[in-house]
Structure formats: structure tokens, C-alpha cells
């Protein structure tokens, strides 16, 4: 056991897997000698060698394409897209190729690749270092979409992803790398070391894909969240004084429908929180599912608290970011419904 922040946990997951399995290799822009712009791959090249952790050309499409080819050969590449905002040049390779290789070849060829990418706002990154494009992947059959919210999960989910035989996209909330962040941005930043989920085993373990976690049991209302928003939801519940049951989805596809239904059936109310643009965000799918499954238990409309339908604007970071005030307001409103 060690105390790790999220970057260290992610680094450790790759290190553990590179040590166990010679077919695991890591590449991406600036990930080699330098160790990545967020330092997630620091030391891996030095420890495992030049061909096992190396820099890639600035060509996200090429990075994913070569990873697919390696996967088809039999390797398990772990690739980094430097920011989720830069994943679009690789979109065709992910959607048309990685996602469909198994299906179209009847499992003759597969793409057991793991794509890690920092995502989300809260760091004054402006419109091209803040995006949350997860819904653009949850719509695509054949991709698993994973979003951790703490060091323990980050390592366990990443190892599970690397061992998974299907392509997995992991969005890492970059605002959480160095400490939990609940959206009270004027408060001093707390390090992970003060948080229980920074207790991370040194070696191999997994957090299963497809399993959500109830991070705060409650009886008034179910809050569905993931990534940074888990911490915001907890802060909002405290702020609103509402006994919310906060669920950290961890995996968006396949989503843990049982945990969701069980909770909403109990609480009869549901608030969904994500940072992404509202229209057609993953919150829409969650809302649709919840009302399909729990219609007769719902006592108020399901509410969504999300980023606005605009790009992420540099100067309005905290107005865009769905912080605890906005979430608390929704919690109160849903309790009145």
C-alpha cells in the first residue's frame, strides 16, 4: 500500500502491467523520455526501455491506427491522447475501426487497446483543453467508456482496461490528478493524501469495468455522476443539506444499470451531473434509461446539471463548470417536485 495521487496511480497501473506482460507497451505524444505533459508515464521509458514507452508523431489518427495494428498482431498497446480535445483526428479510427474490428471479422481480428486521455475543465484550459466528449463514445457500439474519480479506481480500472480484450477509452479528469476537487474553487486545494481513496496497493489489482459505486448512501435523491462531478455532487449534497445517494458510475458503457435502478427505485428522485455540454450528453441517456426503468417510482422530473451548450470559455471557467451551487439548487428543486 502506498499513498498515491491520481497521476501516480495511473503511472503505477502501466508500470505493473508492463512488468507483468511484455506485450504491453505505451506510446503517445511526449510520453517517452519526458514522461507526458501530465507526467503520467514518467520513468516508464527509463525502467522498461525505449521500445516499450516512446514518443509518437503529432497524429492522433496515426497513434490509434498503429495501436489497432499492434492489437491485431497480438500486443496490448496503451496509448495516450494528450488532451481529450485532440481525440477527434482519431475519431474515424476509433469509431470505424477499433470499435468494429471484432464484429466485422467475427472475432478473427480484435483490437485490445487502451486509450487514456485527460479530460474535463477546471484548469483554465480554455475551449481546447477542457472538453468532456464522453457521449461521442458512448454512442458508438463496440467501445467501452471508463471515467475514474480517484486514485484507487484509476489504477484498478486502468489495469482492468489493459487486460480487457475490447477497446477501452479512459477519460481521466485532469482536474483530479493532484487532488480531489469539489468545485469550491476558492477553497485551498486539498492533496489526495488526505483522501481515503489515495491508499493504493503497489501491485496488481483490478476494479471491474461495468460496476458503479455508491459513494454516499442516502434516501432523498439519487445523484448519478462520474469523474470530477462525484466530488462536486458530494459537496452539493452537503451544501444543500439533502440526503443524497451519490453514485459514481465509473464505467459509462456498459453502465451499471442495476445499481442505478435500485437506487432510484428507493429514492424516487434523480439528478444527473456532468461537465459536458448538455444536449445529447451522456446525461440524456441516463435520464432516458432511468425514466424507462423507474417511471412508476419517480416523484419528480429527473434533472440534469451540466456544462452549457457552448464551448468551454476561458474567462468563465466557474460559470461554465457545474459547481456545487448549481447542483445544490437542482437537489433542492427535485426535492420540491
Amino acid at each position, binding site marked *: 500500500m502506498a499513498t498515491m495521487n491520481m497521476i501516480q496511480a495511473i503511472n503505477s497501473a502501466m508500470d505493473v502491467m508492463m512488468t507483468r506482460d511484455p506485450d504491453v507497451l505505451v506510446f503517445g505524444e511526449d510520453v517517452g523520455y519526458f514522461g507526458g505533459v501530465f507526467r503520467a508515464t514518467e520513468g516508464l521509458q527509463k525502467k522498461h526501455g525505449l521500445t516499450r514507452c516512446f514518443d509518437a508523431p503529432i497524429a492522433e489518427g*496515426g497513434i490509434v491506427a498503429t495501436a489497432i495494428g499492434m492489437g491485431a498482431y497480438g500486443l496490448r498497446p496503451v496509448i495516450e491522447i494528450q488532451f481529450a480535445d485532440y481525440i477527434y483526428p482519431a475519431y474515424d479510427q476509433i469509431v470505424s475501426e477499433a470499435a468494429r474490428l471484432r464484429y466485422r*471479422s467475427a472475432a478473427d481480428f480484435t483490437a485490445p487497446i487502451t486509450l487514456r486521455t485527460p479530460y474535463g475543465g477546471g484548469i483554465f484550459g480554455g475551449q481546447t483543453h477542457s472538453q468532456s466528449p464522453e457521449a461521442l463514445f458512448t454512442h458508438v457500439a463496440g467501445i467501452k467508456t471508463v471515467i475514474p474519480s480517484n486514485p484507487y479506481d484509476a489504477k484498478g480500472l486502468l489495469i482492468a482496461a489493459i487486460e480487457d480484450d475490447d477497446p477501452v477509452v479512459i477519460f481521466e479528469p485532469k482536474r483530479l490528478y493532484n487532488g480531489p476537487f469539489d468545485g469550491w474553487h476558492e477553497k485551498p486545494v486539498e492533496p489526495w493524501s488526505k483522501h481515503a481513496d489515495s491508499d493504493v496497493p503497489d501491485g496488481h489489482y483490478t476494479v471491474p469495468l461495468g460496476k458503479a459505486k455508491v459513494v454516499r448512501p442516502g434516501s432523498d435523491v439519487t445523484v448519478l455522476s462520474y469523474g470530477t462531478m462525484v466530488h462536486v455532487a458530494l459537496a452539493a449534497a452537503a451544501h444543500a443539506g439533502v440526503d443524497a445517494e451519490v453514485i459514481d458510475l465509473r464505467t459509462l458503457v456498459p453502465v451499471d444499470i442495476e445499481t442505478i435502478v435500485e437506487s432510484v427505485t428507493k429514492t424516487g428522485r434523480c439528478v444527473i451531473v456532468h461537465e459536458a455540454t448538455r444536449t445529447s450528453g451522456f446525461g440524456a441517456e441516463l435520464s432516458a434509461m432511468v425514466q424507462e426503468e423507474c417511471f412508476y417510482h419517480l416523484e419528480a422530473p429527473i434533472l440534469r446539471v451540466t456544462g452549457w451548450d457552448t464551448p468551454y470559455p476561458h474567462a468563465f471557467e466557474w460559470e461554465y463548470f457545474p459547481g456545487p451551487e448549481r447542483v445544490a439548487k437542482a437537489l433542492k428543486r427535485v426535492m420540491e417536485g
Partner: protein
Amino acid sequence: MNAPIKNTVSLSLRIPEPKARPGDPIDFSGLNVPPAGSAPRPDTRANAFQVRDLAFTLIRVLDEAGKAVGPWDPKLSSALLKSGLRTMVITRAYDDRMYRMQRQGKTSFYMKCTGEEAVASAQALALEDDDMCFPTYRQQALLIARGYPLVDMMNQIYSNEKDPVKGRQLPVMYTSKKHGFFTISGNLGTQFSQAVGWAMASAYKGDSRIACAYIGEGSTAEGDFHSALTFASVYDAPVILNVVNNQWAISSFQGIAGGEESTFASRGIGYGIPALRVDGNDFLAVYAATKWASERARANLGPTLIEHFTYRAAPHSTSDEPSRYRPAEEAKGWPLGDPVERLKAHLIALGEWSEDDHKALEKEATEVVRAAGKESEAIGTLGQSRPSVKEMFEDVFKETPWHIRRQRQEMGY
């Protein structure tokens, strides 16, 4: 030069146009065909800069008399030549039958490779059987040469019960890892950069297998082409990057992909990738160039780009009608001839073949294809027979998650 003089001539936009459209006489006057044997054959250790002229000429071995000449003559045994001819003739017979079957409504779609058979047929022989090919939809000859059963190909085309890809793919989108044939994508170009990744993996593992990638000249405009060349160059990947320049991309002539401004082979120069431009209808030239490239790759000398200069004699697909955009007779006037006829003439010139032998081969090919066709059609053509509907929901993931399982149940499976 000092005073900024504003040019008053107004600019104009150039849209490239082919020499001849329907109704025009066919016109290959601009074509520069160097004589067979004229291109030098450098050592495989030469670098891209040293061999750059080979990107602008045409490597040709078979002369007008059917003789093999010059330094690129691979000096093949007649057994090998005959084996190549057989692959081409069977491929052509196969294409003819399947095209007809589509016309008869037995499947939804088909694509021929008529006129381009030499490329895949010669390469299948020049490569090792376990080298991994990343084909487009016009390299069916690879499968045929490597002994993949014709009946399985047909089952794929008919999406019938025995379809190896379980009714999920459009016809002609074959796959066979066992035969070193990567699953064909409907999305153009994507396989080109994947092939480089496969080659990198092979190098990473200290394997000796190489990758062989294909792309049409039209599709070289996709970003994946650039990714492939960049990654192959940077990591010195053991891969052969083939551009099959059949001069047409559906209705667009090669000028729309930039083919009037430079050769496709010359694209390699800027990446430091040795590039060869080859007469794609010359079986021997394709074989020799491929050997050169594969020797380089296997000796850890990295990638080679090969442009196969050929002509798409058939319609793009069964959905196409070329006489709407090019003179109907253009294919017949193609100065570099037909690859089957040229290899046949060569074997005859060698005294190893006769018109009768050829007729017998054609007959045999038709028969082989017909027999496979009957077998496959007995299983069923499109709509008559198919895999279980359950297959629609399988293989999206290795293990079917709850939401897809539920959907399958909703369908009653």
C-alpha cells in the same frame, strides 16, 4: 524587388480534367512509358535519396515481344510463372461469376479487380505466406493465391449460413488471419496506417514477418496515407506500402488525387521512404519490386513504397457505370495491356506455354469457380440462407453486456 507591386492579373481556380470524356476519342498521348529494362536496380541498402529517380520512371521487365529484360528481371522458374498465371485466371473467372451473380440478384454488391490481377497475384508469391496483408477490396487474388477456399469467399458474398463473418459485412469484405489477410474495411485508407502498426509490433517482438499494405490512388488523399508514411518513416517499420494506381476512383480520374502533378510513388521521397514506380500489369516487374522491398524490410532497412501503375478495366463496382464518365473503349486502349495476356505471352515466348494450355487453364478455372459457386449457392444466396439473427448481437464485445443482451431478447433471440 523592393516595391511591393500588387499583381493585377486576377487569379483563377484550376479544376483538373481527364483527357477524354464519353464521346471523345481515347487519348493516352500524355503517357510516358519508358522501355522495359531501362530502370536501374539499386542495391537494397540504397537510401531514399539515392533511389529517388525510380519514383518517376516505370520499372518494367516484360518487353513488347514478351521477353524479360533488364536488371529487374526476377528470373522466375516457369513453375512459379504458371502458378501466378493460374491465380490471375482463377481470379478473373471468379470475378466474372460473382459479378453475374450480383446482376442476377443473388447478392447486393460486388467489386471486380479486372486488369489489376497481377498486383496481388505476383505479391502473394513474392511474400512469405505468413506476412500480413492489409488489403483493399481489389486484392482478392491474395486469398486465392494463398489457398483460401473460394466457397468461403462466396459464402461471405452471399451472407449465407456459412458466411465466415456471419452476415455482418458487405460482400467482398473478407477476412482471414490464417491466410495473412486483414479484415477489409469499408472505410477507405484506414488499413494503411494499421499495417504500419502491425509491422511495428512485429519488429517490437523480434519477429521476421512483415506487413504489406494496399491503398487505391484515390484514397492516398486520406489522412491515413500520411499517417502510414510518417509512422513507417519514423519507426523504420518493416512494411511494404503499395499504392495501386488504377487511375480511377469511382468517377474521378487520378488527377483529382494529385496524379497530374507528380507520381504517387514520389510521395515517398519526402518521408525518406524508398519508392518504386512499377508497371502494374507486368507480373515480373511487380514480383521483382516486391522482392526488393521485402528484402529491405526483412533486413531491418525499413519501409518501401511501391506505386503499381495499372488501369481499372471494370466498373468501380456493380453500382457503377463507367461509360457515364469515360470513353467506353478506354479500357481496351490502355497501352500497358492486360496482365494475363502479357504473362501468357511471356510463357509462350519462353516455350513453356501454348494457346491450348491457356484455353485449358481458362476452362479449368471456370470449372473450379463454378463448382465452388454451386456449393455455396446450395448453402444459399443472399436472403435465402443466413446465420442466426442472434449473430447480429454477438462480437460487439467479447462478452455481450446487459444492454445488448436485452436488445437481443427484445428481438426474441
